[in-house]
């Protein structure tokens, strides 16, 4: 929820100065344009770095496209020409270039050209915004945006981060849907946003006081005293919530009935490690190694991998780090030529451990690097996409062979590493009693387990309603997997998106889970949720969980568990 003054953004009304430039100012204007283009690119780059998880993939692709457009001579050469040869100001040149490109798209016979025009508008608009920022009247305009609620037709995903930085409290758009990239991004940034408010521009004027309730999709114009009281109540709760969360930083993680729960972090970047430690994670439950292999032409050698792994291990200062071996498949763009690009069905193809097994040299290089890093702390090696005992046994043998080789060539290699597997294919979950005998620990990957159990591609929007980690079949596999691990006295951690979602915390606890791994930003919220859970009452309330047949039935039990 946010309360602020409405600030209407009418479509395409950049502050364009069409007066010709005096000759002496041309090179200065070229420099201004250059700075604005660079700044716009930097903003996109920074924004890209802030995204993680599914957002990084989806919104990231848009941002990549927009970055490339800003770098494209097709766009920039024309701009510089307009300033240098036509003596136009930078803002005018941008506007003309936009019109020229839009006209070119209009001339095309393509039903999807409108989305391309939007891309052009977003890119040009971003540069216009940067240009406007370095002039004084615009600075006043920005200052006036502090405490404001932006009202417009649409807002680009990339624009949102900038808006919050300049103090925008909420956003109302006439178009868009709750599932649009902007809406998803706003949610993850906790920026109140209401989309599809078709009449908003008609009913609102600048400086109208508006209350935006993002969680209920409600916009209140000229809120009453009663509305304002509700807002103050909300603010107090938020403030208390934030304080309570911060106090939790160094609190032990336990349930209301005193059971200690282990919260690990999923990590990829150095920043994740710093955050994981600051927020009290007991280790890294999933360290993804794909980033070392993506977007490059040469495979990383043993030294490079070793350095990366060692730094993470050192960063965690003796806490366990679970390194997952390469989890690439034809579904992930890879430029090293490693993945088979012609697979008709990449999700069921050569990926994860299958890819590693097919490229022994690659696999041993990675295993050697991990083993060497294990000397610097506590390392656990984990393999993805396992379906058979043979894969597990062979990998274990390969690890031992690598260790022997390293030792004989003079490396000191510790014996203290654990070996585990991701359980993310139904076959592995069902055959777990046999598999687990060869493993020291397991980690459940609920994203893939759900996708494979339900035969639903989680990237396919048309099937979004079928992708449901609460499906009775998925819950049964989860319960069974956790129980098998407990019986075998092996640690089981859950490291899919579910683990980091507080609304599933009680459910997972009821299924017997005591070890969670999640993006570091979720650690405190899950810890807070755990402290509310009493396992005795969860057992009672959740007793029908595995017998429930329908989504509704499961949902009801879930609500009961959450009190």
């Amino acid at each position, binding site marked *: 929820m946010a309360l602020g003054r409405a600030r209407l953004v009418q479509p395409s009304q950049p502050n364009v100065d069409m007066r010709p430039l005096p000759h002496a100012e041309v090179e200065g204007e070229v420099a201004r344009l250059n700075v604005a283009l660079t700044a716009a690119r930097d903003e996109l780059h920074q924004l890209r770095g802030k995204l993680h998880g599914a957002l990084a993939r989806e919104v990231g692709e848009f941002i990549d496209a927009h970055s490339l457009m800003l770098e*494209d001579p097709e766009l920039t050469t024309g701009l510089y020409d307009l300033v240098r040869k036509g003596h136009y100001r930078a803002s005018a040149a941008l506007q003309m270039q936009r019109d020229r490109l839009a006209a070119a798209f209009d001339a095309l016979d393509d039903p999807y050209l409108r989305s391309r025009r939007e891309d052009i508008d977003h890119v040009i608009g971003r540069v216009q915004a940067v240009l406007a920022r370095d002039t004084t009247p615009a600075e006043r305009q920005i200052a006036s945006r502090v405490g404001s609620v932006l009202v417009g037709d649409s807002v680009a995903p990339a624009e949102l981060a900038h808006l919050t930085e300049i103090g925008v409290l909420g956003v109302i758009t006439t178009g868009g849907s709750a599932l649009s990239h902007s809406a998803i991004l706003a949610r993850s940034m906790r920026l109140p946003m209401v989309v599809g408010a078709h009449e908003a521009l008609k009913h609102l004027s600048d400086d109208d006081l508006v209350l935006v309730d993002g969680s209920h999709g409600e916009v209140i114009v000229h809120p009453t005293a009663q509305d304002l009281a509700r807002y103050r109540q909300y603010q107090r709760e938020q403030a208390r919530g934030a304080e309570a969360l911060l106090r939790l930083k160094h609190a032990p993680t336990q349930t209301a009935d005193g059971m200690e729960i282990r919260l690990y972090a999923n990590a990829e970047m150095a920043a994740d490690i710093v955050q994981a430690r600051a927020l009290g994670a007991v280790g890294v439950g999933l360290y993804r190694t794909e980033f070392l292999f993506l977007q490059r032409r040469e495979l990383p050698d043993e030294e490079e991998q070793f350095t990366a792994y060692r730094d993470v291990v050192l960063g965690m200062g003796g806490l366990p780090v679970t390194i997952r071996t390469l989890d690439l498949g034809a*579904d992930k763009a890879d*430029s090293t030529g490693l993945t088979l690009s012609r697979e008709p069905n990449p999700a069921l193809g050569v990926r994860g451990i299958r890819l590693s097994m097919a490229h022994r040299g690659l696999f041993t290089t990675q295993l050697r690097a991990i083993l060497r890093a294990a000397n610097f702390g506590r390392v656990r090696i984990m393999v993805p996409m396992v379906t058979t005992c043979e894969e597990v046994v062979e990998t274990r043998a390969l690890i031992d062979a690598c260790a022997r080789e390293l030792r004989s060539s003079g490396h000191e290699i510790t014996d203290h590493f654990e070996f585990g597997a991701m359980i993310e294919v139904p076959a592995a979950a069902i055959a777990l009693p046999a598999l687990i005998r060869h493993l020291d620990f397991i980690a459940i990957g609920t994203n893939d387990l759900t996708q494979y159990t339900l035969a639903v591609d989680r990237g396919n929007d048309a099937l979004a309603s079928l992708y449901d980690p609460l499906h009775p079949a998925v819950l049964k596999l989860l319960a069974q997997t956790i129980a098998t691990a407990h019986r075998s006295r092996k640690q089981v951690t859950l490291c899919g998106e579910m683990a980091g979602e507080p609304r599933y915390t009680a459910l997972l606890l009821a299924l017997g889970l005591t070890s969670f791994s999640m993006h570091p930003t979720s650690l405190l919220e899950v810890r807070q949720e755990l402290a509310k859970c009493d396992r005795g009452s969860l057992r009672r309330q959740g007793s029908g969980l595995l017998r429930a047949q329908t989504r509704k039935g499961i949902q009801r039990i879930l609500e009961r568990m959450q009190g």
Partner: protein
Amino acid sequence: MLERDITISNKLGLHARASAKLVQLLQGFKCNAFLVYRGREINAKSIMGVMMLAAGIGSTITLRTDGDDEERAMNEMAALFERKFDEGA
């Protein structure tokens, strides 16, 4: 110089994200790369050019590479089209 005809099979054709993937892929190659469609030839390393080609699903375009690593560039480019730009659907 190599040439190969290919039919666009992803739902949205050469929209911004697909174009970005193509351009990013080609940035790693030294050779020149072009797309030819309805008599127009555009630089495949320019995202604006690729987007403006307006080749939607079902249209057949010609891929052209010319330079040192033209064969590998051609194969990877064709593979990206065949994978429907990893769009999943």
